[in-house]
């Protein structure tokens, strides 16, 4: 044996030693220096969370009637881990379950496939939840089915039948309120990621969403989602690599969501909806009493009843509407298409707070105080001709003819437009007309802003519309946006129109030219239109109701709201939702008092007289202040408005109704409003019984509903359905014990 061999053997041993040292070094790093990160990776690996959803809180009306509650459904679920344990992947088990619940095997089998996994059917047939969540295969099981499953545990491993809460909109007394309640929808991937990121950042006020969660997608369900949803129960399980469960590491019970008490009174809501339908029907079938019973399209409408002191929405309805229950359990494609189609005129949109309409003469409640600001006396008389010259053209008095020289009060009662043309036009001229300095404060547009028009009222519902104040700034912005279009048209003309109607083409081209060159200008006609609520100015019916509430309550600009309070299912108050009003409209109390009295005059001897007289409404006992409006819309039939509040002496409610393409305010909306007031003040024939009013006493409900210790809500006495199921279902019901987990 050579020395060379021996030497190389020594080298070999050194190499081996270095290999071993390398291993030890790496082990030191992995096991000692970096162990924390590997531990967390292992923890993530080996645990799974099962979530028991919390029962969603009820939405109650002001007197405790449930507008949204939970129906209990007997839900049969199959645990996916139990399926995996079966030798045949669970086919036989699923077949047994399918037989018991009376559904075809293929449907149930598809339901147990995870969406996106190989061989899974497309959504919604597959299961969109977590692989560790029991998969619900039916929510229509009956007790008989449940017993079959629960008593033969050995035949149904991992299958459970338990009572689960399913959302339901019971529509008490027929109150639909679909646009206010909103609906629930499945959570999206973005929301899941967003909430999870929030939780990591430590935003504890937001609950982490689970894939199977339903979240509020519109209306109150969305606005108060966090309050209503509650906290889900979480069970942390130790699992192996296949997801089979080894043990339970931690468990927290779900906490039911809180109740939302609203300002809505289901009785008034139901009556408001009924009267709105009646107005639509009247316009379509009977016709406008003031226009020789001319029939109208009446494509849509809205009604709002506000508590003038707090801004609480006692009722708010929009037409066309839909059954909110179509959203429960996932809306069908056909239903969704039907409520979002142009053919049905978009029933999913609320005209009350999302629809924008020219307010017409109801706007005089805004322009009268503005005229006072501009220096016109309330106690003087003015000429009310049938037309008023603005520049080179004559502007007509729309709803009324010439009345001669009349006192201001009479101008309001007969809704004289020409008087307001005069106020606005003269003011416009005084301010410099077309050449007014930049930043000139027009009293009319300023007053509209002070009344909160042109921006959302702050209603606690999503997607409220702004409305629009068509003032100088708006015209400027609009011109900038449309200038290019009109200038191009001014150049090219209207060759297509010219072929058939050369005169019209010439007219359109001249219009385009005008718009191109000085479309920015706030003309005298614009100012005159503005004063009578015509032109480009639009409001939502809710904004108008708020205007009349401000007139009624002495100048406070209330924030309309539906949420009244959040209560626990045990009945303790969590927080009050009444917003504080801090803004006042800049109108002297004497002016408002004059205006209230003048509006009362409208009902007693002006344009509002007809509907109340025909309804034989005892105005002597309940004096109503009102203003009609008939809005002209280019290319459409007129918008019927009726804005009001009552009693004029001690105002409680502001009621506004609008019917698009409905006809005149007094002919179409007015009669319905008169009927609605009968409900609000307990009018029967010529007698007024405030005890029979709804809500009782002829004033909005102020006390919160009473919740019993078991979570049931005390219902108003005398309701036709006193036996109403008001139980908050899930947390109090006995549950079948879930086994095999």
């Amino acid at each position, binding site marked *: 044996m050579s020395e060379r061999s021996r030497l*190389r*053997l020594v080298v*070999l*041993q050194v190499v*081996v030693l270095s290999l071993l040292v390398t*291993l030890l070094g790496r082990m030191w790093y992995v096991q000692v220096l970096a*162990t924390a990160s590997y531990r967390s990776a292992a*923890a993530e690996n080996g645990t799974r969370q099962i979530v028991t959803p919390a029962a969603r809180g009820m939405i109650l009306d002001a007197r405790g009637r449930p507008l949204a509650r939970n129906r209990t459904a007997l839900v049969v679920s199959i645990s996916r881990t139990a399926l995996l344990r079966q030798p045949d992947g669970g086919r036989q088990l699923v077949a047994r379950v399918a037989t018991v619940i009376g559904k075809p095997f293929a449907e149930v089998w598809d339901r147990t496939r995870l969406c996106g996994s190989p061989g899974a059917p497309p959504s919604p047939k597959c299961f969109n939840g977590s692989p560790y969540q029991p998969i619900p295969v039916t929510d229509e099981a009956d007790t008989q089915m449940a017993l079959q499953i629960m008593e033969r545990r050995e035949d149904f491993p991992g299958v459970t039948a338990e009572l689960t809460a399913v959302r339901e909109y019971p529509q008490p007394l027929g109150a639909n309120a679909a646009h206010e309640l909103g609906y629930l929808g499945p959570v999206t991937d973005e929301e899941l990621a967003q909430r999870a990121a929030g939780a990591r950042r430590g935003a504890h006020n937001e609950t982490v969403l689970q894939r199977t969660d339903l979240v509020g997608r519109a209306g109150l369900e969305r606005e108060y989602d966090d309050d209503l949803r509650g906290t889900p129960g979480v069970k942390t399980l130790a699992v192996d690599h296949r997801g089979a469960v080894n043990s339970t590491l931690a468990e927290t019970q779900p906490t039911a969501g809180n109740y939302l008490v609203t300002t809505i009174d289901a009785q008034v809501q139901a009556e408001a909806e009924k009267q709105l339908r009646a107005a639509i029907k009247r316009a379509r079938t009977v016709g406008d009493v003031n226009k020789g019973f001319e029939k109208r399209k009446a494509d849509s409408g809205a009604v709002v009843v506000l508590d003038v002191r707090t801004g609480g929405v006692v009722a708010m309805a929009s037409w066309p509407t839909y059954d909110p229950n179509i959203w429960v359990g996932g809306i069908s494609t056909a239903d969704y298409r039907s409520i979002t189609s142009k053919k049905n005129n978009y029933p999913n949109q609320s005209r009350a707070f999302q629809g924008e309409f020219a307010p017409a003469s109801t706007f005089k409640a805004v322009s009268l105080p503005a005229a006072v600001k501009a220096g016109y006396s309330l106690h003087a008389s003015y000429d009310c001709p049938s037309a008023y010259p603005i520049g080179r053209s004559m502007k007509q008095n729309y709803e009324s003819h010439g009345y001669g020289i009349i006192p201001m009060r009479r101008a309001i009662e007969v809704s004289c437009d020409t008087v307001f043309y005069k106020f606005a036009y003269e003011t416009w001229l005084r301010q410099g007309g077309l050449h007014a300095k930049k930043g000139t404060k027009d009293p009319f547009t300023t007053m509209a802003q002070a009344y909160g028009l042109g921006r959302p009222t702050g209603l606690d519902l999503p997607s409220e519309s702004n409305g629009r104040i068509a003032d100088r700034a708006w015209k400027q912005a609009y011109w900038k946006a449309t200038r290019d279009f009109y200038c191009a048209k001014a150049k090219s003309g209207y060759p297509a129109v010219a072929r058939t109607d050369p005169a019209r083409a010439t007219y359109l081209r001249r219009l385009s030219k005008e718009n191109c060159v000085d479309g920015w200008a706030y003309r005298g006609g614009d100012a005159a239109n503005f004063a009578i609520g015509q032109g480009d100015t639009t409001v939502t019916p809710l904004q108008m109701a708020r205007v009349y509430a401000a007139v009624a309550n002495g100048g406070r600009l209330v924030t309309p709201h539906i949420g009244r309070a959040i209560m626990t299912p045990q009945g303790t108050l969590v927080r009050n939702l009444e917003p504080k009003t801090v803004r006042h409209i800049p109108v002297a109390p004497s002016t408002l008092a004059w205006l209230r009295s003048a509006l009362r005059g409208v009902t007693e001897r002006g344009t509002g007289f007809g509907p109340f007289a025909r309804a034989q409404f005892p105005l002597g006992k309940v004096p109503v202040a009102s203003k009609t409006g008939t809005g002209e819309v280019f290319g459409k039939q007129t918008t019927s408005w009726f804005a009001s509040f009552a009693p004029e002496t001690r105002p409680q409610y502001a009621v506004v109704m609008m019917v698009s393409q409905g006809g005149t305010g007094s002919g179409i909306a007015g009669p319905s409003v008169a009927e609605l007031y009968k409900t609000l003040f307990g009018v029967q024939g010529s007698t007024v019984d405030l005890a029979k009013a709804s809500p009782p006493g002829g004033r909005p409900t102020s006390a919160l509903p009473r919740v019993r210790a078991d979570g049931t809500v005390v219902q108003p006495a005398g309701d036709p359905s006193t036996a109403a199921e008001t139980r908050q279902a899930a947390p109090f019901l006995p549950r079948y014990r879930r086994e095999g987990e």
Partner: protein
Amino acid sequence: MSTGYRATPYTTAPPRRSARLLHRDGVVRRMDWPLVLAVLALTGIGSALVWSATRQSLLDSGGDPQSILKKHVLNIVIGLALGVVASLFDYRMLRAYAPVLYVLSIGGLAAVLTPLGSTINGSHSWIVLPAGFSVQPSEFAKVALVVGMSMLLAEKRDAEADPRDVDVVLALGVAAVPLALVMLQPDLGTALVISALVLGLVAVSGAPIRWVVGLVAGAALTAFVAVQAGVLKDYQIARFTAFLDPTADPKGAGYNVRQATIAIGAGGLHGQGLFHGAQTQGKFVPAQQTDFIFTVAGEELGFVGAAGVVLLLAIILWRIGRIAIGADDLFGRLVATGVLCWFAFQAFENIGMTLAIMPVTGVPLPFVSYGGSSMFANMLAVGLVLNVHMRRYA
């Protein structure tokens, strides 16, 4: 009754068998006890780890939770018996039987490629026997190759002469056949172990340095060509490169590495306790009782226990190295050297892959992993090394 008379071996009657064993020059005294004890300790720890790795899945499938442990202990006992047999006769006699062993092992490797062979874990390396037994001929081929190459490299020369080129060529030729057969299975891990063993043997045989350098260069070139020419299957390359970035494909090739390293890292300094490793008991690491047995040590026994395993391996390698240096002849030295290279590389590869510093190739951890063939081959190899040790100066 001391008379000053002292009995000598020359005057007394031949001692009885037990006395002969315990005699100063007897087998027991000449045994390398640190090596034997380290091997026994390692098999003991290995048994505990195999038990922990298999208990839960056996429970889940409703079987006897100790059934694999029992088979493992049986393997150890049989292995020890084989080791004793391998150490009893004079290893020099083995030179005569080397060709027989070699041909037998080639036959076994070839049989794997016939319909007799079966595929387990992606390697077509097994011959399944009746009654639930299976044999992995490549394990035994390592023993045969060590003996065969040592014979060729140590043959035909006196103590002064190093192997001539022709001897090296012959030895490499002998190694090439089993290497090729193993590659055909394909069993990349065993092929790498054989390569390491061949390189070590050629180097320590005293062959000209150009052969050592040439072999290293040749190995590098082969690897390059194999990857370029597509000789390796995609999954082999994927497995091989997964260790470079285990997170690249956590559910595919990188999954094993990722889960193995998580298990070891989660063990920390002191471990989570035997039977209490969440990763192990949750069966997140695949092939955990065989190729990934070290992860059980890492997770449940912690750095302390895992380092203990490495230390026992170090003792075994140190003693084998000592025996190689102290061997009487080149054949004995080369046998010990071959076993040293085999164990060292296989242990480094096995542990290194669980720590994500070596590619994933399926080789068992000597004396620890579950598996009869590997246990028997390891024991035979240790028996031969002890044989070399005990026959010094004899």
